[in-house]
């Protein structure tokens, strides 16, 4: 079989996706958390349609952020425990490429299902229909950025016992730009404005995270092996 530059990327992507498939429910818990969390808001705020409509875009995005955060420790923790990660660090494949594959698999398992579930949430939270398409699009693009940026924090916190809380402190500030433009795009669409500007800026954030984060994460992982 011919060997290409991307063979390590494809092999790792396939591997992580089949692991998620075998583990079944466990991998999709984050999506469940996303849906259930957002369902609590109408119960807490009360069934006032106007009020919910005004805050729903922000709520859905905050829930997307938190669910991604919840799933971040899945990214490297198991591979680190089993000793796979140290083998990958010294493998002939470029480490950033393998990390990019892991982040992409992470997005397919968490970000993608969230974007698919978003219209249901939009309905439940009374988000005006004009914003639905933008919401799905923004979650698709922004979700990728969340997974790639999150990989840096996941790599830095490998092996730390109180990883969960620290992860929140590390990752949430880095997620703020994505949140602002993501929720902004939906708000603009709902208000009848053009949301292209917000989406373009978010696309720029996503592209730069895809191209830069794997290198930062790879440096953090090498450090963690010492």
């Amino acid at each position: 079989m011919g060997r290409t530059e991307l063979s390590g990327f494809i092999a790792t992507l396939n591997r992580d996706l089949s692991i998620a498939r075998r583990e079944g429910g466990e991998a999709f818990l984050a999506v469940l958390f996303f849906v259930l969390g957002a369902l609590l808001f109408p119960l807490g705020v009360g069934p006032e349609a106007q009020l919910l409509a005004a805050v729903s875009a922000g709520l859905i995005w905050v829930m997307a952020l938190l669910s991604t955060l919840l799933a971040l420790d899945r990214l490297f923790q198991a591979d680190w425990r089993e000793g796979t990660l140290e083998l990958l660090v010294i493998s002939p494949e470029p480490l950033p490429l393998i990390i990019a594959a892991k982040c992409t698999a992470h997005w397919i398992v968490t970000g993608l299902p969230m974007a698919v579930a978003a219209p249901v949430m939009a309905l439940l939270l009374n988000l005006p229909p004009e914003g639905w398409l933008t919401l799905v699009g923004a979650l698709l693009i922004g979700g990728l950025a969340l997974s790639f940026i999150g990989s840096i924090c996941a790599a830095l916190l490998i092996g730390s016992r109180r990883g969960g809380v620290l992860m929140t402190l590390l990752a949430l500030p880095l997620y703020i730009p994505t949140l602002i433009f993501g929720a902004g795009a939906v708000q603009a669409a709902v208000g009848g404005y053009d949301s292209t500007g917000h989406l373009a800026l978010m696309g720029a954030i996503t592209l730069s995270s895809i191209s830069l984060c794997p290198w930062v994460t790879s440096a953090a992982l090498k450090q963690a092996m010492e």
Partner: protein
Amino acid sequence: MTKHVLELSNLACRRGGRLLFSGLDLSLTEGGAALVTGPNGSGKSSFLRVIAGLIQPLQGQIHWEGQNAQKFTDNFRSALRYVGHSDGLQPVLSVLENLKYWSQIYGSSQDLKKLNRGLESVGLFDLSELPARVLSAGQRRRLALAKAIATDGRLWLLDEPTVALDRQSIKRIETAISEFRSSGGIVIASTNAPLNLSDCKALDISDYQWAEQN
């Protein structure tokens, strides 16, 4: 003059503020082997991790085929097969899937016959469809070794390869090692258990302790 393929010169390593070893020289030619011994905590694992590139040495150099292996990693890493304390297996994937993934990462042939031969040489062929999580400790160890055996490396670093292995499996591993060496491979193994390697250099890590002070 024989060409030294792997050359370690004046290697020193410090972990947690303690100097584990220093002034360690070792050179191996094709087909060569070294057996690293020493009491627990003397730095056998750290020594192998330094060569593998997982730990930066305090001082000293590692050369692979005349190239500095710490700077020019490509050639060295495609030759290197490190089997550490952890087996590096994915529990939900099957035995064969685990092996196949590493053959892809190492860029070796993914020919099913070849992978099956590798599993056969460690006696795991009959279990190839089982998920790795149901394997016993010894079977996991054998699968970890099969990752090196079936993927065309040229330098094996084996950290306690015989831990949890029964007598028959140790025999199998010894056979695999001698076959690998006769095809030109280099092996460095650390062990406290008897491992029968013909014509190998013996390296006692504790000989290199406190070398600076004496």
